[in-house]
């Protein structure tokens, strides 16, 4: 939990995979319920698979449907790598082109 954050947020720690997808889904939904603008911090994700990505996509879509804002922030290399494969931006919109892997390595 960081004090710099001005909106309610959730930090995903550890893996965001089929193993944890159910609880992460519940956590994300709860987060969405809490405010109109929320952030999900992805810097401490150690593993992200299709199930995890799917939960993020769900949360994002749910937010849009509710007229709320959900931002994915500080995605680490592991997350960017997966988004890159799926050709998605951090907004979870379709990325226009494949970015070479090197670029992600900031």
């Amino acid at each position: 939990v960081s004090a710099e954050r001005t909106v309610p947020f959730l930090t995903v720690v550890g893996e965001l995979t089929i193993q944890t997808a159910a609880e992460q889904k519940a956590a994300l939904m709860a987060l969405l319920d809490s405010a109109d603008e929320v952030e999900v911090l992805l810097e401490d994700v150690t593993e992200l698979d299709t199930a995890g990505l799917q939960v993020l996509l769900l949360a994002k879509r749910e937010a849009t449907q509710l007229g709320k804002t959900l931002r994915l922030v500080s995605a680490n290399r592991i997350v960017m790598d997966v988004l890159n494969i799926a050709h998605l931006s951090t907004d979870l919109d379709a990325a226009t082109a494949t970015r070479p892997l090197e670029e992600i390595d900031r």
Partner: protein
Amino acid sequence: MNYEEELRSALDTFVVEGRELLEDMESSLLGLELESAPSEAINAVFRAAHTIKGSSGLFGLNHMVRFTHVVESVLDRLRNNEISVSSDLVGALLPCRDYLGVLIEGLAGGRLEQTEEEAVQAEGLLAVLHPYLHDPAQTPGVGTEGTGEGIGEGTGEGAGADGMPELPGRRRVHLSLAFGPDCLRSGMDPLAFVRYLSTFGDVVSLTTLCDLLPDASQMDPECCYLDFEVTLDSDEPLSVLAEVFDFVRDDSRICVVGAESSLAGWVELVESSGELAEPITQILFDTAAVNRDEFARALLERRQGIGRDGEPVAALRAEAEPVQVAGPAGQAGQVGQAGPSGPTGQSDAASAVALIGRQAPAPAVENRPKTAAGRPAAGRPAAETATRESRSIRIDAPRLDRLIDVVGELVIAGASAGLKAAHHRDEALVVALGEVMRLVEEVRDSALQLRMVPIGTTFSRFQRVVRDISTDLGKEVNLVISGGDTEVDKALVEQIGDPLTHLVRNSMDHGIESAETRVARGKPARGTLRLNAFHDSGSIVIEVSDGGGGIDPERVLAKAIDRGLVDPGAVLSDQEVYALIFEPGFSTAEAVSNLSGRGVGLDVVKRNVTALRGTIDIESRLGEGCTMRIRLPLTLAIIDGFLVGVGGATFVVPLDRVIECVELPPSTDVRDFMGLRGEVLPFIRLRSLFTIVGERPRRENVVVVEYAGMKIGLVVDTLVGEFQTVIKPLGRIFGHVRGIGGSTILGNGDVALIIDVPMLVRHYGDRQSGGQLAAGARE
């Protein structure tokens, strides 16, 4: 299956398809000159060439791609009315088609490279085509310098999105990956597959579709809802790419489609994608792999064809409508970068038609009504073709044979049960079994129907035969085909080709006179040969008629006497004289020509037809022409038989030969004939013919059979009744046995022999001469 095997099986499919396409191509080429509006035929030829090019590209058969590309370019110009149909052009294209046939047969034999000889041949053929290419700038890769460049261009849909020519080995592939809902739970990570896939080439575009993701409340986080649409440029064959997904294939929908695939392939992809049809369609358009107009038309027509209207394609419908109305003006709706590349970027309705119906099976194209369809109207038959394509299944012949074999056994078993039930006089059982038998018979008929193919495919081969022979003989002959949709057992179709070829050659060589003679006789200089087929009471009748000189009975008779086939003093009817031309070693032609006249041919025809349980007869009018009529049973597998008993043995007489059954008059003990309504009926005692031991019963029966207009009686002990039966050929060891056409197994497990009626009738003829001598000695 390892990679080698997969390639092998894919190649086999290509070979089969290639043969069909070439057949199609040939018949269309031959039709070009005859039709007043040949656009449909041109499209059919183009389609065939294009598909062969595309498929050979998939297998990296670059020599074939290169060659077909030139052919296709010529056809494309033809299609765009830049050049016109001429006898010379058809004459130049036909050998190209033959050359492709040689290559494909080479493939069938496992030869992927062309031989030196073939390479030289290709050069020669392409040189002939060269004048038709006219403007070399438009067709890169012409002739010898071709490197596969420009492939896919000129078709408006093949090449890369940005007009980049695709390298021969590298192709654009679209993969539609909808992983099964349970894949996550079973430890499969779709993203891992996608990641792995990207090692096979360059991912051009990838879209993650989450349209199937349900509402948050219903969403099961352990269930997979995502769909990935990937466009990939890869050197790998489609099969290798598809193999990536072998682990998840079972409950997933994985579609791998090459960018050069036919429109039908795309339609299939979209149609199989269920709720995702709309977004996927959009993606296909966006990645420029598919032309919007053509696709919309194909999809719409397919849906209308299947009667599944009202699917979520409202947007497509709106776009398709003006195309259908406007026809050739449909360019307006064009989308994507596919258009500007290639000389035929303009996709008019005609090319849409060409693309939609591309992989149509040959017979479907054959049978399409050949009305002089203008371009806007050409959409209808194409729609039908597309529909048929989606409805037909290719089945291995052995599987079908197995089914028919089993159905045959079922018929026998059913008949056996019926006999037993009748024996027990159990009325209810008999009725129930009657119903079962009715259904079994229905199954049998449907199963046999599966083997039925229209004879038109065989007939259309003769366009080429006639054309070639006309050239050889210097006679002008038109071939008129009718009854091409008459259906006949596939096995028969395969075996009737050779006899028919002989008859056609014979008619053209001996029947149709030279142009001068024809004119002198007041006939049109161009002769006409007719091939006709129709069903007639359980048989198929195939006629070869020519409007030629007819058969001169006197000349035939003189020749026969000369050859020692007939005694000089013999008096023969015209029919009998005509039949002489089927005798071995008979030929009336004064000059032995290249084709016929060597005295081999017609006797072979007769033998082949007889072997198929068929008959052949001749109708001729001197000076007016001649008709050879082949009559064949519809199927070779099952016959309706008439079961008779002699002593302990049972025989089956083919029912279609049986005229009637009468009781043997008591006073015929020593005679070989009896009176039947004022006529003399000669008969054969099966008991003595087959030397069956045992007492003769008090009353005997006569089964009257007919063959070739001749009636004879077969004397038997008992008449058992009708019996459907599967013919099982006699083993080779019984090959010399005369009078028996095969065997069958009865319901009680006994073997019954099937009487070969034609053989017996002939046997009677032989005996008659011998018999008279014996009678003379007795008197």
